Each structure stands twice: as structure tokens, then as C-alpha cells.
């Protein structure tokens, strides 16, 4: 999924719209901005009380609700800023180093 999305956002000059215009709404979705993250948030679903503060505070709306009602980061867009971990009232989120 990630690879397919990337290809739509990064295109050659011959395929750019006139004047680099954007012709469809929501195109930033196709641009994966989570590629340079150094740390990744890991949620402990046992501690999570499903308050949703991480989702509200996330500058990229990358914390998304799972079917179980807890939250997980969408790593296509999470930049690892750590705001979610800082704000979580239950200390349910920890930052883990991204390695390889």
C-alpha cells in the first residue's frame, strides 16, 4: 500500500499539471511524510483508556482509532515527534528508536 501511494505523489516533470497545480483534493494523503522518523510511538493497549487525547494532539492526525477502541500510529505519516507520549494521561505510549 505504502509503495503505491508514494508513486502517485512523486512524479516526473512531464506528468505535472500545468503550473504545478493540484487537480484533485486530498492529494497530500498520497505523500508519505513519515519516512524520516527517528522514534516510533508504541501504544500499550492495556494502559490505554481510549480518551483520544493522542489523536487530538497529534499534529498530523496520525494516531488513529483501532477496532478495539484504542489508538495506533499511522506510520506513513507519524514523524515521531513524541507529543502523543507526552500528553497521554495514562503513560500508555512509549517512544522506541527506529532501527533499520
Amino acid at each position: 500500500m505504502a509503495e503505491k501511494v508514494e508513486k502517485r505523489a512523486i512524479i516526473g516533470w512531464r506528468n505535472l499539471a500545468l503550473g504545478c497545480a493540484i487537480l484533485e483534493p486530498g492529494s497530500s494523503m498520497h505523500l508519505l511524510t513519515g519516512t524520516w522518523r527517528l522514534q516510533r510511538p508504541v501504544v500499550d493497549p492495556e494502559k490505554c483508556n481510549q480518551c483520544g487525547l493522542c489523536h487530538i494532539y497529534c499534529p498530523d492526525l496520525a494516531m488513529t482509532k483501532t477496532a478495539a477502541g484504542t489508538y495506533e500510529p499511522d506510520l506513513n505519516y507519524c514523524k515521531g515527534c513524541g507529543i502523543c507520549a507526552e500528553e497521554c494521561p495514562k503513560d500508555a505510549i512509549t517512544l522506541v528508536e527506529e532501527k533499520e
Partner: protein
Amino acid sequence: MPTRTPMEVSIAVAKAVQQADVDVIAAYPITPQTHIVEHLSELVANGELQAHFMNVESEHSAISAMVGAAAAGASTFTATSSQGLALMHEILFIAASLRLPIVMVVANRALSGPISIWNDHSDIMAERDIGWIQVFCETGQEAYDAILHAFRVVRDPNVVLPMVVNIDGFNLTHVIEPIYLFEQEELGDYLPEHRQSLKLDIDHPITMGPVGIPEVYTEAKKQVEDALINSKQVILAAWQEFGRRFGRAYAPIETYRVEDAQILLMTMGVISRTAMGAVDRLRDAGKPVGLIRCRLWRPFPLPEFREAVRQASIIAVIDRHISLGAHSGPVGQEVRSALYTLPNRPQVFDFVLGLGGRDVTVHDFLEIVELAEQYATQGPPESEYTLIGLREV
């Protein structure tokens, strides 16, 4: 048979804009461009031109209004000079990168300081890389025709770029000259209707001017560069068609008495007339001197230029701008780099003259030819360019 009407060149330019049936004109007064938009404001006020005339608070606003109007699909025109053009600077690049077909006259005037309202090319030479098509005019007739060419070219779906028509301030804008003006029906379909494929439209929303992230900025620039380079074919076709229909032919590099010329003067704009006078005198005296005049400055017509100078041994380039801290003027730099990769190339000497409205005379060109010959035989001057008419003490 059409007749020539004596009129101020600025008025003829305004009439051409009227005939191009523009939708929006934004204007801020600055000498020596003022008469052009002043006359357009009269035409609009009198109901002779159905256009929206915007009195804006600065040139930055004038060009910004043009960008907005053009983005919404309007045919647009503005004119400026000197400090006004400099104030537009940042928006000029945006107009090109958004691919907006704006037409602008620059009534060339020196940049401050010291404050000068008079003619040279320093205003436009500071804007060489803006991505606009740029032409220079020699006569009032050419200025009038060039406006018509400009609207045809920018409206071409293969171009869709803004265009500057350079008209020397005072020495051309304020000159009264007999000019052939078209009746609207004579023009026929030479000027296509203004139709933009991409514009701001609430029924079909798009985003214009988004951030160009590092992954796309290079490609965005390449698109503009490609359009600008390819615009030459459309420009040449517009000139050929104009010649075919109306009998006045235009070329990117004009030549005058270049047959077997060993020495070529190279000029841009209105001083070319004066240079022709010098060429006549030198030819009468048996000297193989000719003149080439660069009409199309951006995109630079490289093959046409190389062809025009192929047989010359000396080119004396005239710059009307002093490029402070560089080794020569902008036209001199352009010419030298255009020839550098050729195995056999003429010697190029650069001369800067006519700054800030200093009169340019036939005598100046005679002196330039003499100096160029001297440099060619006795070695080049210490400086890579020569400032003509400079008083030392």
C-alpha cells in the same frame, strides 16, 4: 491601402491592448510608462474598452492583481518601469511558475540610485531569469505590433507563459511616430480568443501555487523552462503569420548590412537606429561593418544568433546596463557564453553606454568600432568591458 497615423508610441501601445480585448488592467503610475495605462483608463472610462481597470496601491499589487485575474481566466495587461518592476520582483517568478498568460510592457528606465527617470536597460536586466518571454522593440511600429504578437503568443495553449514587451523609456515611449494601425476587422483571427484550460473555477476546484517540496521543485522548474524554450517555435510562427498577413516580417535576430561584415555591432532596442547610421557611414568609407539586433531576449535564440555571427571576426556588444562586480555586462556575458563552445568563434568585446539616459550618438558607435578593431589587433583592454563616454575628471 492603410495609412500611417502620427501618434505617441505609448498611445499606439494602448490601442494594441484595446484591440487585444483584455479583461483586466491593473495600473500604478510610474514614469515613463504612465501614458500607456493613462490612455487605457480613458478607453475604459469612455466605454471603448470593456475591461476592468484596477487602480492599485503599488506595483507589487499591480502584478499580484494580474496573477489573481489571470488565474481566474482573465486576459490581463499591465505596464511598469524601473523601481516599479523591481517592486514586482518576487511575483514575476510566481506568474511564470503558475503559467499565467500576462502581458506587460516595461518602459525601460534606469534603476536608482542615484534616482534617474531616464532610459537604459538596468530594470529588465535585473529580471532576466523570471521565466517570462522577453522582446525588445526598436520602433513605435514594432512596439504596436509586438503587443499584438504578445497576446497571440501567450494565449497559445503550448505557451501559457507571461511576456514582457520592452520599450525604451522616453526614447521610444514618448516619441511621436507615424504608425500603421489596424482596423479591428483587419486583424481578423490573428488574435485568438482568450481561453485558459486551467483556471480557478468554483465548480471545478483546483489548487494553484502549492508548496513545491524538494521532491517536486526541480520538476516544476523544468516544466517552466521547457515551456519557455519551446515558446520560440510559437513566437516565430506568430511573426511569420503576421508577415504573411500584414507584410511586416520579424525575426529573433535582425541584421543590417551584414553581407561580408567582419565587424558586427550588436544592439537591443531603440539605439539600433543610431547604430545603423554609424554602420552606413562606415560602409560608405569601405569598412566591412554590420549590425545585429537582438529582438528576442528570452528565450535566447541561440542557433539564430550563432548563424548571424558565423562569418564575423569581431563582435562589439552593446550593453545598456552595468553589471556591478561582474566582468562584463549581461548581454556581453550572454554572447560570450553562447560562443564559447564553438571551435571557431569571433572575438567579443563588450561596451557599456547610454546609462541613465545619457545620449547615445552615431559618434559613440564609430568610437566603439574603432576600439574593437584596436583591441583585436593590439590586444584586449585591461577590463573585460569598456565604459563609453565616462568622464574621468
